[in-house]
């Protein structure tokens, strides 16, 4: 790839969402903005190799895209004929110097009531990060055709309802932030255990979601839950290298080599969590991050404070009950008060959902093994293995099943 092509690729990769949001914010909607940007990128590929890469590639792209959108508008007669060339130049200059960050508006739009919850995270990945529908479909385990159609429809609906991406009213905004954060976290948990498609160079969906979470935290600094979510994802990411041994085998949290945890990521997570805590307004993501913070403390103390984790899970269950929180609390209870207490807590999970929830089965297997019920533990480890998508986790669980059987 030539330098010019690389610069265009880099601008598209790093600034796509920002560019689309700036273009869309001036009216015309996402689709028109994307069309205009595509044209600008195509022009960049033919012009930059000859004349060199401009000092501000993004500013150049915005100006050219605006001109393209304007030409297109003029062809359709939709835009006024009196294009203000000076305004265009000013926008170009401003774009290169100081970016008005419109991405939060885009995130808000993607999490709006017009967009069904399951599509919010995919839409953010496409509109804000510019990922293509095929890769998003793989990450969300949806047939690519279905994902493409759904995303197009969602964008059309957004275009009709909010052509200029008006930000939500302040009272609506707080609620929307929650939707934005939930969508980002949904994308993160999908990508947590594997690369799951998307861009391998950037570490898969988890890395993209982490980036979105960092963006949300930076753009909504007065929202403690955004900081909490960013901290939570940073804690989880900090352990990525420790989750597999040198042979690619699964390593559970309690056997992880703590020197493989990323200290800078843990420190960044702790800092975000401290900033969040200063607001004195605890929430689901802050509590989950705090639980991870206790786990991370093992690196200094050499042990895990299960009683502290249990208290945090109690708070989490009171605030945001979920099967995941119930399972986590039962594990903590098992560590703090013995396997029987943990097993009893697991029984509180609704029967319909728990049977196909892999972490619940794995937790039950683990607690059964600790309580000495070897045969039951083996059967449960096998069922947990059968619910695993990750081959490394499956192998590990099957080994535990064999171990429980052998005694």
């Amino acid at each position, binding site marked *: 790839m030539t330098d010019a092509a690389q610069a265009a690729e880099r601008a598209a990769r790093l600034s796509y969402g920002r560019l689309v949001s700036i273009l869309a914010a001036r009216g015309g909607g996402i689709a028109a903005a994307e069309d205009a940007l595509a044209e600008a990128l195509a022009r960049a590929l033919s012009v930059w190799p000859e004349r060199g890469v401009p000092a501000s590639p993004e500013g150049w792209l915005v100006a050219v895209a605006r001109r393209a959108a304007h030409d297109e508008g003029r062809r359709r007669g939709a835009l006024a004929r009196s294009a203000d060339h000076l305004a265009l130049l000013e926008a170009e200059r401003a774009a290169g110097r100081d970016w008005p960050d419109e991405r939060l508006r885009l995130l808000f739009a993607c999490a709006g009531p017009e967009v069904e919850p399951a599509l919010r995270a995919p839409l953010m990945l496409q509109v804000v990060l510019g990922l293509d529908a095929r890769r998003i479909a793989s990450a969300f385990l*949806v047939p690519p055709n279905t994902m493409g159609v759904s995303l197009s429809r969602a964008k059309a609906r957004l275009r009709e309802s909010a052509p200029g991406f008006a930000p939500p009213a302040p009272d609506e905004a707080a609620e929307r932030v929650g939707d934005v954060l939930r969508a980002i976290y949904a994308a993160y948990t999908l990508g947590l255990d594997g690369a799951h498609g998307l861009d391998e160079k950037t570490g898969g969906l988890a890395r993209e979601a982490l980036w979105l979470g960092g963006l949300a935290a930076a753009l909504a600094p007065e929202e403690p839950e955004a900081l909490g979510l960013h901290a939570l994802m940073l804690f989880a990411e900090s352990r990525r290298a420790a989750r597999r041994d040198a042979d690619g085998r699964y390593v559970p949290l309690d056997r992880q080599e703590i020197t493989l945890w990323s200290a800078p990521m843990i420190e960044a997570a702790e800092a975000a969590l401290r900033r969040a805590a200063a607001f004195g307004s605890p929430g689901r993501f802050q509590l989950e991050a705090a639980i991870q913070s206790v786990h991370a403390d093992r690196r200094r103390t050499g042990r895990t404070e299960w009683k502290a984790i249990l208290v945090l899970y109690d708070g989490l269950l009171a605030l945001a009950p979920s099967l995941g929180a119930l399972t986590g609390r039962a594990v903590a209870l098992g560590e703090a008060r013995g396997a029987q207490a943990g097993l009893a807590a697991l029984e509180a999970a609704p029967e319909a959902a728990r049977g196909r929830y892999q972490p619940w089965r794995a937790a039950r297997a683990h607690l059964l093994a600790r309580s000495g019920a070897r045969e039951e533990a083996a059967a449960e480890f*096998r*069922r947990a293995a059968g619910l695993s998508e990750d081959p490394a986790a499956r192998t590990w669980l099957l080994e535990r099943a064999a171990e429980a059987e052998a005694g």
Partner: protein
Amino acid sequence: MSMQFMILPYSKKGGSGAAGAPDDMPAWIAYTEALAKAGVLRGGEELASPDEAAVIRVRDGARIVEDGPYADTKEQLGGFFLIEVEDLQAAMEWGARCPAASTGAVEVRPVILHPR
């Protein structure tokens, strides 16, 4: 509302049936058990090696029989699971958990239920 789907595992040739290498057997047993325990399994069997398959055509009243399988691809259908779940997303999740997904490929296909 629930829908039925076929989960069709394709594995590399060489092993016997869906299981491929005998080492994989515990994973297949675990998967089948998880399907059954979750209450979604409606049927399913392992198929014998494609080497044992025969392909039949009748043209102009004459039988034409050839050694199988129907399509001689690198990865071969090794069995089938019929499942009943609430939607395509749930079926896709079960498809991803199928051991063949991480070694070969898994086809997830909706079943059309004709009124009887």
